């Protein structure tokens, strides 16, 4: 596609997972924008029926089917592409599937009315996953004439704790269906998911539990055999700048800051409430307490960052957006991803 090198050249299905609360949907959307800024069309799909994409892009709930939600920022000499969004649900995926393989155009709808789809996906949870991953695989492979419809598909996938099972379609289904159409379908899906065209990215924040889950998830995917899944990058979300030298960090974390010196600094900066030196010392103490807390958090985060680095996958850092996540914030995250070579 583009002339520049990215870490995931050749990957067309980006699966984005992460623990709840780490900003998985946000990062998936930013990745879609980043990929689309090279031009063409990128599909961003969610699979958990939460309408998280619509909330993020501040548009009405996504209807059935794919629709355009954003235009990506362009790159020098090139206009940005489009991001389309899809809220995939197993009901319509099953209807599509029945139509495609059994020529039963209305069967899906009828079954849906009876609550059968819900029932079937309940007694066979693996089926739900096959239908959803199947939809992603279909969009990835879809062509209009000789051209691919989407340059890339980004899937806002289930959380880290469920990702291996979700993607390990063939094995999950083989317990249910040893032969027959579902099995065949699962095998096709599997061939896309396990190809070099697919990569699984992990979103985390620099806290102990999300990092542990990320490492566990990576180990679990590595353990899948045979062939395994291609691991993608680790997207470290909501990173705050440290702003302290190592020496300052150590001193601050230990709570050994020179408060008088800080008070002097405040005075030099012209901060004086007219309440006398005692008041300024009090303010300095408060700021020192903030610095200490900040330094301790920074050191704890550094430890977590080290653990992530040990996983042997490329890490990308995304800044904390403090003033509310909107399209401008997504653009900022998208450009951070591009600058670091993730897209």
């Amino acid at each position: 596609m583009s002339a520049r090198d990215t870490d995931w050249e050749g990957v067309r299905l980006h699966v984005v997972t992460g623990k709840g609360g780490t900003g998985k949907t946000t990062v998936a959307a930013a990745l879609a924008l980043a990929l689309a800024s090279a031009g063409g069309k990128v599909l961003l799909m969610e699979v958990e029926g939460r309408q998280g994409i619509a909330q993020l892009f501040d548009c009405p709930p996504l209807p059935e089917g794919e629709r355009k939600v954003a235009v990506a920022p362009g790159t020098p000499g090139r206009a940005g592409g489009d991001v389309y969004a899809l809220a995939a649900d197993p009901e319509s995926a099953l209807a599509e599937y029945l139509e495609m393989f059994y020529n039963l155009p209305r069967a899906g709808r009828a079954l849906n009315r009876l609550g059968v789809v819900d029932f079937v996906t309940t007694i066979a949870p693996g089926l739900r996953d096959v239908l959803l991953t199947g939809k992603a695989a279909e969009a990835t492979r879809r062509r209009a004439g000789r051209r691919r419809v989407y340059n890339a598909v980004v899937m806002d996938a289930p959380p880290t704790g469920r990702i291996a099972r979700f993607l390990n379609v063939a094995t999950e289904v083989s317990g249910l269906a040893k032969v027959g159409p579902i099995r065949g379908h699962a095998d096709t899906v599997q061939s896309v998911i396990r190809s070099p065209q697919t990569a699984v990215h992990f979103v985390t924040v620099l806290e102990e539990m999300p990092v542990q889950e990320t490492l566990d998830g990576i180990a679990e995917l590595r353990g899948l055999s045979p062939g395994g899944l291609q691991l993608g990058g680790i997207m470290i979300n909501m990173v705050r700048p440290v702003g302290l030298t190592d020496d300052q960090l150590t001193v601050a974390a230990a709570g050994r800051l020179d408060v008088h010196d800080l008070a002097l600094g405040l005075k030099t900066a012209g901060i004086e409430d007219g309440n006398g030196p005692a008041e300024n010392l009090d303010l300095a103490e408060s700021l020192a307490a903030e610095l200490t807390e900040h330094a301790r958090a920074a050191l704890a985060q550094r430890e977590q960052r080290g653990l992530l680095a040990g996983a042997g996958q490329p890490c990308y850092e995304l800044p904390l957006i403090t003033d509310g996540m909107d399209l401008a914030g997504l653009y900022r995250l998208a450009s951070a991803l591009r600058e670091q070579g993730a897209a």
Partner: protein
Amino acid sequence: MTPREKAPAGDVLGEVELRPRRLEVDRLLDDPRTRIIVCCGSGGVGKTTTAAALGLRAAERGRHVVVLTVDPARRLAQSMGLTSLDNTPRPVPPPDGHGDAGGSLHAMMLDMKRTFDEIVEAHSDPDRAAQILANPFYQSLSSSFAGTQEYMAMEKLGQLRRADEWDLIVVDTPPSRSALDFLDAPQRLSRFLDGRLIRLLTAPTRASGRAYLKVVNAGFGVFTGAVAKVLGTQLLRDVQTFVAAFDTMFGGFRERAEDTYRLLQTPGTAFLVIATPEPDALREASYFVERLSEDRMPLAGLILNRVHPSPAARLSAARSLAAAEALQAAGGNGNGGGGNGSRPEALNQALNGGAGDAGEAPRYSLAVTALRLHAERMQLAAAERRLAQRFTAAHPGVPTVRVPAQPEDVHDLAGLRIVGESFAAS
């Protein structure tokens, strides 16, 4: 500490600040009529830590507490002496010098499959139980059905309550994609097991062994036919044998789910909704509050975790930033990276206030950094307050307590105690 000081005008976009009623956590924990506390909220908001901290605090205030957790972080679990997922309450060794109020603390991790297995074993003869436990469909249902974990958490809660060995049970709800799942899933599971469709699917089997095949062939088993087509006949047969073996337990299942649901509606139960000051978490919290009131479940209040109050709130973000810039212009460097060798000695002297050697980092670089960080923190606090205000405006009657963010993750009892203290402080 000044977080309760009136915010300076214009700090919260010039709005009048709404103050929710304060949630009196200690009063709730001390009240002997409080028998069950349910911590709910969306994933990643600190439910487990909150539940553990509540349990510890209640125990230290004299209650006999059991904390039922579902999926604790490894080190948090270890801190409470939970090394394995063994589905039994284990005593948590009291930390030094704090066990003098006569209370006690137990904790357990839920093993949903084992809980399910135990119900099966308790309600059928050994042969039938073995048959059910070996059924592939049962295995998939008991380990991966989306509502099983919630159902089993409810079931375990009912068991603990009936055992009556503890006077307070604190429950941490499963990490589900939506906080509402905890209330819906048990009914979904029992409705599913007792449902029309499963009856329809299995009715022919009960009449005679393989009659359903005839039904399909006869052409009027559209439903069974479609199911068989998509899933294959093997799975269908597993479901049928499962249902046949499980038949006698269906009624009991529904009854138990309904019992526990009713238990949750009694005044001895207190729901605490947990959230962080983030849009998604607060949106979920809103849904949950509305749902609890619809279902007449007793809501005690909102615990707003990980807020960033500033001990220096009287210094506004704008002033702090302006001061940082002024100081930096005068020679301090926020990054501490630049050499100060080029700075005239006279200025150095002036900035040092005659303190002699300035060392490696430029003079006042720490003050510059402190001011910049403070400005950032004030902005964050303001954004958090706006979000919290939105919640309070929509649910003015919900008492709230704010829990400051801890710089490090909590993984020992001392850390849990600090969290517990912050419920009462501020």
